[in-house]
């Protein structure tokens, strides 16, 4: 099965929740040094629930489509639910068989989102391996 099916290309070319939030209170930037992908995510959290999300990305189709599909999933989710998400959950949301060599592309957005929440809760931030 082709990982670049039309749905992925569509999300890459027209990502959902793309663009920074108006006055972001919570933001995080993550960089995948192995390929140069960069993502900035803004979250609006109210009553421990994600109310809105916005992001700007310079990355490959897999990292942008992952963040786009993930952003749809995250709206109205409790932060506690978001913090338990791992690599396999993003793969399920993506719905295409991405090889493990692209794990950083898959996880870039989730890592940024979780670290925003953790930072806001004054907890230690996570690294790639924590999400595998």
């Amino acid at each position, binding site marked *: 099965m082709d990982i*670049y099916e039309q749905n992925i290309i569509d999300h890459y070319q027209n990502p959902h929740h793309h663009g920074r939030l108006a006055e972001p209170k919570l933001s995080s930037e993550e960089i995948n040094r192995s390929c140069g992908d960069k993502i900035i995510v803004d979250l609006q959290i109210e009553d421990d629930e994600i109310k809105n999300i916005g992001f700007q990305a310079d990355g490959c189709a897999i990292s942008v489509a992952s963040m786009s599909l993930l952003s749809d999933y995250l709206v109205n989710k409790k932060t506690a639910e978001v913090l338990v998400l791992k690599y396999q959950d993003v793969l399920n949301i993506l719905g295409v068989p991405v090889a493990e060599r692209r794990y950083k592309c898959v996880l870039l957005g989730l890592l940024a989102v979780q670290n925003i929440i953790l930072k806001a809760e004054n907890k230690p931030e996570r690294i790639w391996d924590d999400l595998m």
Partner: protein
Amino acid sequence: MSVRKNFPILKTKINGHDLVYFDNAATTQKPQAMIDALSEFYQKYNANVHRSLNPLADLATQKYEKTRQAVADFLSAQKNEIIFTRNTTEGINLVAKTFARSFLKSGDVVLLSVAEHHSNIVPWLQLKKEIGIELAYLPIDKNGYLDIEQFKIMLTDKVKFISIQAASNVLGSIHDYQTILKLAKAKNITTLLDAAQIVSHVGLDVKELACDFLVFSAHKMFGPTGVGVIYGRKELLQMMPAFLGGGDMIEQVLKDNFTTNAIPHKFEAGTPNIADVVAFQSSLEFLQNLTWENIQKEEKELTDYLWQEMQKLDFIDIYGKNLLNKHLPIISFNLKNAHAHDVAEILGEQGIIVRAGQHCTQVLHDTLGVSATVRASLAFYNTKKEIDILIKALKEIYQKFKV
């Protein structure tokens, strides 16, 4: 081409596709002769070198030292000017952490270039933190070659060490390193030539080049992984302190002092990578039998065809220029609308092995203003037919990602 039959991996299939190996700048494939030599060493000659007084150890030592002589001949150096390391990275680190740390002082300038591999930047950044040297970066010109006019301007009295690549692992440009080394020599500046990329394409004569240090890795020239080479001018090697401490690098060890062994052993602490060093000799022999003349003729044809066909594609950006007889069979590029990693992924699934990313050259990518590139790097065993396969695949990828 009949030379392909010497490289068994070229018959490998990936997802049912013929392997098109275009990642030779990362590591080259290995001839059967080297694979056999490696296996033969473990089957017949395995023993530790330079120590036990027994006939098996003698054989192993002779074979290990025979490669050292072969490398010395290959570079027109003396045998004791050749040090075995793990790789080019370790070679540059050794020079930075022994020679440069001992003989440079705060405020001295080490001249690098913006095109250097991280292995020729980070050891110098470490030294900058440690003893306060300053770094200066030679720019590239509009064609992707080290800017010689700028070099002349930057060659001030503060420059005490020059560490520079002979060719770019990204742009494929073969720089005018001869002129750089000559001008440095005239000003008595110590030089290190990073020959990692050029060593499998061009003959090198350290006496003619008059460089002080030259480093490369065996695995980028059809040899085994885990073997690096430093050529160091004898007088410098003798005045440098040892690098790692341990067995073989010492003459005598007392409770409160030690004296070092003679060069080159002073820099080879502990049991070296004996089997791979021994096997490396057959890679050198293989190259010698092929002759530089044949290699260069084949590679020039491949380089020109690759660039000609790639330049026909109106949907790609190419970095650098293929100047006549001054280019390796390398091309770095990006497709419009498709990210480098996606391009490499799709090519890879079809058996076309390329590299995507920054190729350990973040400073160069920042200079080029791109976050990642796709790189195809060829060797003499590649074919025009394989280039056609790449071109066809790129057209299909473009169609897929077209907005």
